[in-house]
């Protein structure tokens, strides 16, 4: 198998993992909404920090612990970098819109700070991950 074929396979795998992670994050925040244990000091509340930190890091560097050298360059070529940029832009807009939605919703139905922050962070990261996965799959 050539480097190009290997990179293509890894790129497809990366897109699939990111799509799955985006869905899991969205499901997580929905299931955990209103449950104080998942937003307070403790293992369950702390796991959110790890989860968001991990996926932010993966989005930032384009796939976590990747191979070095030529394979890394192939995985993060111009098209992939452009896709990542577009995905991060969508994540930013999703964060702003979700923050506004939480602010307005709070006028009628109070939302706990922890829940609101989880909605914003999960929504932003999930939107970016799903967008990235979609762009990578669509342009294959």
């Amino acid at each position, binding site marked *: 198998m*050539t480097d190009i074929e290997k990179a293509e396979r890894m*790129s497809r795998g990366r897109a699939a993992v990111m799509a799955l992670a985006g869905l899991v994050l969205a499901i997580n925040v929905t299931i955990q909404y209103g449950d104080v244990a998942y937003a307070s000091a403790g293992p369950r509340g702390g796991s959110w920090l790890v989860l968001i930190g991990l996926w932010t890091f993966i989005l930032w560097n384009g796939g976590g612990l990747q191979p070095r050298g030529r394979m890394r360059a192939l995985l993060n070529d*111009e098209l992939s970098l452009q896709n990542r940029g577009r995905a991060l832009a969508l994540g930013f807009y999703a964060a702003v819109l979700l923050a506004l939605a939480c602010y307005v919703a709070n006028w009628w139905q109070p939302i706990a700070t922890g829940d609101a922050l989880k909605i914003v962070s999960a929504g932003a990261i999930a939107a970016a991950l799903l967008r990235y996965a979609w762009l990578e799959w669509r*342009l294959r």
Partner: protein
Amino acid sequence: MPEGLANRLREHRAERELTQAALAEQVGVSRKTINTVENGVFVPSTTLALKLARALGCTVESLFSLTED
């Protein structure tokens, strides 16, 4: 009038009997990038355009040109 970018990458590649993967290997990008450039979905940087021209033994102007939509 808005301008678009036309490219003759596919023709030049076919003339040299190169596959997308082979050209990708030569310029150091993924096959997907070559495919999207050929289909006009992705506009490459100047650096990549120069690398493509070098790999295909032609000028950048013969690969890419402006069109009026």
